[in-house]
């Protein structure tokens, strides 16, 4: 009887393992879906990159741990995908963890030449990483710079000194744009010369960029109490328009066509809100698309579903999905301090 059972079990095990093999064909398990940047809590350095598959609602809380068997620690500010690699930026450990984009298998760690790295962009085959540098005794950031990374060997090969608190980075055409958030400057950088070639003066400390469908660059600015939006004309390097928005500006993005700009504000002592404007707007709407408490990250997918990352203090955060009229669709758990999304479709 027992022997029969064991043969049966072996056959079953074989059948199951055979099944599993068939399922695990390339592309990797993280090829298509939504990536969530969970910053993690400062004292625990427990940042993670979450993964959500909108097709079947599956959530992986820590894609790196799932792929590599153990977590990588850090306080993750952002993740940047380029070709078949993803770059996880840890501002606490001043390092970038490079993984394969579709499987999240570990590739390399960049830990030389970085100091509180924040965001990354790629241009001319090189990586450009904004670095705050150390705080001085007045909590100012006088030593900020951009580290230029050779993506073939993951070495920092050059640095570009910037204005204070360089933050959001983006590439449009053959230029790199960098937001120096502790000043009022957006730098224009030539990735051929690795030099600053020009710039914009913004109405506040510039944080993040969003490129609209007309090739204009929107920059979200925050001066702690007041916030503003500015539209940059890249061809003549002029600020075309700028206007005030609600306080505590935090995130900006566009819909797939680039006809609408979405941005999130988290003013003090009043509810946080997500607002939407046309790419021709010259003033801010009064009524948000949706509002709530603890809003910490914003994303909009190609179907114009709004993803909100809600921070619950040191508790794990929540991701809530809304239709574009602000009706809640569903929600699921995230890591601590989820601050943003990357959509890979």
């Amino acid at each position, binding site marked *: 009887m027992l022997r029969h059972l064991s043969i049966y079990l072996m056959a079953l095990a074989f059948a199951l393992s055979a099944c599993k093999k068939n399922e695990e064909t390339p592309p990797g398990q993280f090829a298509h879906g939504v990536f969530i940047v969970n910053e993690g809590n400062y004292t625990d350095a427990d940042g993670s990159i979450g993964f959500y598959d909108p097709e079947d609602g599956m959530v992986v809380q820590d894609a790196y741990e799932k792929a590599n068997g153990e977590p990588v*620690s850090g306080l993750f500010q952002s993740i940047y995908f380029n070709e078949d690699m993803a770059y996880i930026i840890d501002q606490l450990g001043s390092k970038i963890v490079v993984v394969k984009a579709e499987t999240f298998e570990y590739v390399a760690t960049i830990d030389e030449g970085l100091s509180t790295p924040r965001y990354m962009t790629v241009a001319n085959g090189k990586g450009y990483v904004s670095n705050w540098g150390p705080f001085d005794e007045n909590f100012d950031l006088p030593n900020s710079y951009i580290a230029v990374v050779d993506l073939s060997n993951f070495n920092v090969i050059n640095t570009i000194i910037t204005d204070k608190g360089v933050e959001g980075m983006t590439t449009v055409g053959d230029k790199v744009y960098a937001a120096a958030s502790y000043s009022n400057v957006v730098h224009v950088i030539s990735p051929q010369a690795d030099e600053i070639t020009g710039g914009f003066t913004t109405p506040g400390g510039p944080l993040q960029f969003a490129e609209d469908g007309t090739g204009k660059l929107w920059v979200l600015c925050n001066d702690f109490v007041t916030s503003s939006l500015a539209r940059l004309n890249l061809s003549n390097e002029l600020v075309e328009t700028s206007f005030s928005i609600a306080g505590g500006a935090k995130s900006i993005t566009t819909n797939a066509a680039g006809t609408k700009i979405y941005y999130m504000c988290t003013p003090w002592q009043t509810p946080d809100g997500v607002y939407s404007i046309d790419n021709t707007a010259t003033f801010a709407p009064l009524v948000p698309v949706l509002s709530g408490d603890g809003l910490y990250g914003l994303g909009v997918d190609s179907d114009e579903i709004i993803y909100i990352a809600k921070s619950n203090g040191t*508790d794990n955060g929540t991701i809530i999905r809304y239709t574009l009229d602000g009706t809640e669709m569903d929600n699921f758990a995230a890591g601590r301090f989820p601050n943003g999304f990357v959509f890979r479709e």
Partner: protein
Amino acid sequence: MSRKTTHLIFTFGLLAVFIFVHITLFAQENTTQLDEVEITANQLTRFGVGAYITELDSGLFENYGRQSLSDVIAYGSSVYIKQYGSGQLATVSFRGTGAGHTSLQWNGLPVGYPFLGQADLSLVPMEFIDQVCLMHGSSSARYGSGAVGGVVDLSNEEPPEGFGILVDQSVGSFSTSNSFVQLHQAGPKGYIRVGSIYNRSENDFKVRSSNGESLGRQANANYFLTGGLLEAGYNLGSTSSLTLSFQNTDANRNLQSSIGAPTSNNQKDRNMWSSLHFKHQMAKGEFNLTYGHLFDRINYNSSVTDSHQNIAQATLLYDVSGWLEMELGINSNWIRVVTPNYESNEARETRTDMFASATIRPTKRVEASINLRQSVATGYSVPFTPSLGISYLLHRKENWKFMLRGQVSKGYRVPTLNDRFWVPGGNPDLNPEESVSTELGINIDKGQGFWTNITTYQMWVDNWILWQDQGAFWSPDNVLKVEGKGVELEIGYRQNAGRWQTKYWLNYAYTKSTNIEPRYAYDRTVGKQLPYVPFHNGNANIQLAFKNWNLLLNGQFTGKRFITTDNVTEVSGYALLNLRVSKQLSWDHWAMNAYGNINNATNTNYQTISNRAMPGINFLLGINISFNK
């Protein structure tokens, strides 16, 4: 001036005081003896009828070299120690409560940082402490603020009569060296004891990932710990005595960072505690007057926070009759914290507590304690806290004793000065946290040979203070409501067979501590276990003594702990094995004790806090020479 020079001057200073007091006190010896010191456990149990109180076996910390208070508690009790790496901040969690929910008492004074509302148990040197008692459960009625989960009570005993000197030196893995010197003189008129420690470690143990992959050596976690002790007792006639206790520790630590996220932070702690205690014995009672001064400093990356506490306490103990004992007391604590983190760099607080206790023994089998306390503080109002404990002797036959006990008590914890005054975010409108705790236990003893202690409890903590994200900054509020329940178990067995003596004992705690009220939209934490509270925690010990050999085998077990409040991520449980052996030789007035410790003998890769590496197998070898005459 270098640290070493400061330390040397300090040591010689203590020595000078010793010699001075020695000459003045002991120049002529005569007549009466000092009263025997009452064992502190009695002070705890006197009005703590019904509570679960244990005294840690001194066999755990004598004879085996340097240990911190956190090590000793982890070895000898079921209480969970949360440690942020090797030699780093260690806090204690009784019955699933937080770091601030334990009151640490030193010679009757509440110690710990008043701006943090907690103490770092890794900085309390066991070299200076003679006795550690643990009181599980809420007992604020007796111990005031912070005694929500439990109390750790440290006390010193009077040294034995005569002159004594003790020198202890050990060396161990990771360039660890511990030195300890102590001198004492005790006579009819009084006693004096001085001591000094100098401990240091590079603490560069091998770091392994949670998969066991080698990640090189731990950087930036080295530490120094130096300290001095001065104790003196003086008999004023046959009924009164004056006792001075002074203890200073200076720690300089680089703070161990998370694996893979290197940071370089340095913290220097200074804890300078003094107490002057006058005791007057009366025919039917005792009058005690204590003045304490506590100076505590944290220098974190050159940002210095100082706290000064002046504490005055008076108690009157009155033995009304054979069946009724009472105590009345008043205690005032003037606190001043100086820190760049507060507006105008300073905050003050005054707390005055009035308390009354009584123990009654209406029959031979029944004993009951009632404790009442009202505290008045500047800036907030403190709830009235009573407690009632009863014990009932079920059965007594030959050596066997079966005793039922139970307790209902309130506890509270006042908001810390950081909670109230931190800029930005400090909330001056905070209320104290409050707890109610009930417990039921049974003790079964057979003389000194067998003992069992089983306790079940249930407790609720309301108004638990949490710092919450307010957008621009964080601010604390009374938000969390927690329910805790569990079982605590202690079993011991001792056997004497000729020259062989063996002792077996184990401690175990099952703890379920959950958040019971939602605090925000989409709250997934309700009903979940609090982070870093293990369901299972315990240890098992075997101690063998043969002739002058002593062997201790200690096994510790801690179950999985959740990292986050929604219980999505966890740190794996672990078991550790520690071995300690010592051999004592003595001739005339001399004694020599050589010891060796193997810690984490199985080289287990474990973490108490997620991503903080802990050392694998490590060794300590030492020798201890003493002269007593």
